[in-house]
């Protein structure tokens, strides 16, 4: 049973027993004034209405799963970074909610800081987020107010959009477009426009340089990124994530291991991992927000919830990037039986994210000219070589057919 069929039956149930009675009741209450309610009730009874409702549920579920992952990713980042640095990281424990209970109930406060700071810090991120809501939103006097507010909207909405695009498994997918990966990559490249916009509109030199760096980096890395993906598309003959993952499970390798794309296209995998790091702007490629020289990069002038959403959106992009890498090269949700495919998918994604966290906290940042040089002079030829290898493999495959079994595409 796929996610959509589940949502569809849930939609049918809710529409029949909950929504349609409510609308009908409202329509019957003040008949002259509630024409739309009756029409909505009628529409919900049709196939189209139920489909729409089911889509809404599916998207919401995918979004909630993504957001839950977001909190886990940020928490992982902080704790693993702290462990790499021989520290403990945030330690705000669940027992600190006792203070909240006291305040809500109007009891006398007890001061047990030792209890507050003896946990694993899982609610530290929630607390940071709630605090950001209460902060003042500052718009600098000389900033372009319209673009200043539009920048975060472009960046955050395009990032959140990513969450519902990739499937967690062939049955857990909010959307399944035939050109799914192309849509994901298109959504990926919207965000730098938001960066550029907000960097320019802040009327701050650091922000502007950060925005410019982001644009330059996008130009240098988008092309090798897509070329390294082209090899996978050639093998699978499709842009659909489900098809790509199924294709990877068809072939077998030595000892009957599944031949995921990481094996025939190792060069492509390396190029893709470097490019996706640059695409989601993590160390060593986080030049747009290089803290040492540009204070906070393009987010310098943003305060409160806008800044916090920027931060969250960056982690969402990181999560989505890891998911794309998993689908393309690591066999997606394929894995041995007792563990469900969704969990396999998340395990792979989290392994990539943890790998990124290790990279982030153990290397310095690269300079602008070096990063552009790397993109144009090294990664672009390498990705072309990868495509060449894929084509050659298709050509010379018949000679090795008794050793390896490749999918029918060859």
């Amino acid at each position: 049973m796929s996610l959509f069929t589940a949502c569809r039956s849930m939609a049918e149930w809710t529409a029949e027993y909950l929504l349609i009675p409510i609308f009908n009741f409202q329509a019957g209450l003040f008949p002259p004034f509630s024409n739309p309610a009756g029409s909505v009730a009628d529409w919900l009874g049709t196939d189209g209405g139920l489909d729409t409702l089911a889509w809404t549920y599916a998207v919401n579920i995918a979004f909630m799963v993504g957001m839950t992952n977001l909190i886990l990713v940020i928490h992982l980042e902080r704790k693993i970074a702290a462990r790499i640095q021989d520290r403990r990281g945030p330690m705000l424990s669940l027992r600190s909610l006792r203070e909240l209970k006291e305040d809500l109930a109007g009891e006398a406060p007890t001061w047990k800081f030792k209890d507050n700071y003896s946990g694993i810090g899982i609610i530290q991120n929630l607390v940071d987020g709630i605090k950001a809501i209460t902060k003042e939103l500052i718009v600098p006097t000389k900033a372009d107010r319209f673009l200043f507010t539009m920048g975060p909207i472009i960046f955050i909405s395009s990032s959140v959009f990513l969450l519902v695009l990739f499937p967690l498994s062939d049955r857990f997918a909010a959307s399944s477009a035939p050109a799914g990966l192309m849509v994901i990559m298109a959504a990926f490249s919207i965000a730098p426009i938001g960066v550029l916009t907000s960097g320019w509109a802040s009327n701050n030199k650091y922000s502007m340089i950060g925005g410019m760096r982001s644009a330059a980096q996008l130009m240098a890395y988008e092309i090798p990124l897509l070329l390294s993906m082209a090899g996978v598309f050639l093998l699978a003959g499709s842009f659909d994530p489900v098809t790509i993952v199924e294709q990877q499970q068809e072939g077998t390798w030595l000892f009957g291991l599944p031949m995921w794309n990481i094996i025939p296209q190792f060069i492509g995998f390396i190029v893709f991992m470097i490019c996706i790091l640059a695409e989601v702007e993590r160390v060593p490629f986080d030049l747009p927000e290089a803290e040492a020289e540009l204070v906070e990069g393009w987010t310098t002038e943003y305060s409160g919830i806008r800044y916090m959403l920027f931060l969250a959106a960056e982690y969402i992009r990181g999560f989505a990037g890891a998911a794309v890498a998993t689908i393309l090269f690591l066999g997606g949700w394929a894995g041995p039986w007792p563990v469900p495919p969704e969990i396999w998918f998340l395990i792979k994604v989290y392994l990539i994210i943890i790998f990124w966290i290790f990279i982030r906290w153990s290397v310095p940042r690269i300079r602008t000219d070096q990063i552009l040089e790397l993109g144009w002079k090294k990664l672009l030829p390498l990705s072309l070589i990868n495509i060449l290898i894929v084509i050659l493999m298709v050509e010379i495959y018949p000679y090795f057919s008794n050793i390896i079994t490749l999918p029918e595409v060859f």
Partner: protein
Amino acid sequence: MAEMWISMGPQHPMTHGLWTLKVKVDGETIVDADPELGYLHRSVEKMGERRKYFMNTTLTDRLCYASSTTWTHCYTHTVEELMEVEVPVRAQYIRTIMLELQRLASHLMWAGAYMPDLGHITGALYFWRDRELFLNLLELPSGSRLLYNFIRIGGVKRDLPNGFEEKTERILKLFEQRLDEYSDLFENSKIFRMRTDDVGKFTAEQAKNFGITGPNLRGCGTKFDLRKHDTYEIYEEIDWDISTREAGPGYSDCFSRYMVRIDEMKESVRIIRDCFKKMPAGATLASRIPVRAHGEAFRRTEDSRGEAMMYVVGDGSDRPYRWKIKSPMFTTMSACPHYLKGYKLADIPAIMGSIDICIGETDK
């Protein structure tokens, strides 16, 4: 992009203190620069004229927050020259040990502050973790973590505590192991070399003319260390070498300055070990310490950042008539337009971090 001025500071992660660097950039390339100081000008020289000689060690401790003992030593050394005080031999050994421990702590502070400039935050915390060891060690005799006020006119405050030698040896052994571990993370790392090689170059002749001294000058291949060339305390009896860089890859650039400081830390470990070996018993404070002084004297010592120098003029009273501080970073920073020009915007933290700025001593 047209040329524009960017003002960095006084609140900026690059500055390592309080100063403003105005840079003119053409795109990302630096065309011109203009450093501006004075945000931490506490008028130490004027205040010193109102205090007695022995009171001024409080001010010299706070002169440079990263290496307070070396500055206090420079001051007391000058005043001892002015008052003609003979320091006991054991006190000289204890002073040398304290100075080298302070040099270790200061270089570790620098290394820790330099790593975030390159975007490497873990490096900072590793070096600061090791610095904590030496702070604990310095706390044992002096009773304070950062500003010790341990070196007094005519000797030191008190003798070393029991078991100090064993503790020091243990920590030095641990520290040497860790330095070896870090070599993979830093100097053998490809990205680290990409950021520091051939960045911020100046030749030895330029450096001397600019007034650049200390590790920054030794990074250019000049074998000049005041501990050997204008020797003080008991440095000539100790077995150690001047750390410098030979011509080749990684020469007179940020990487060479980094390596010189790492080598100096290893030399400091050698000096401390040798001091413990040769230290005699005896008094730690001179028996006769005058209060008044007449005449003028200057001494220069090798601070962690270069040539520290004090010039004290006494008029026969118990307070200095004029007290002039020479800070090595003051002249080094004045030349920063020369060695910043032509590099990229991202190189500013790498270059300014590598020369080890301390604004406390610079602004006086």
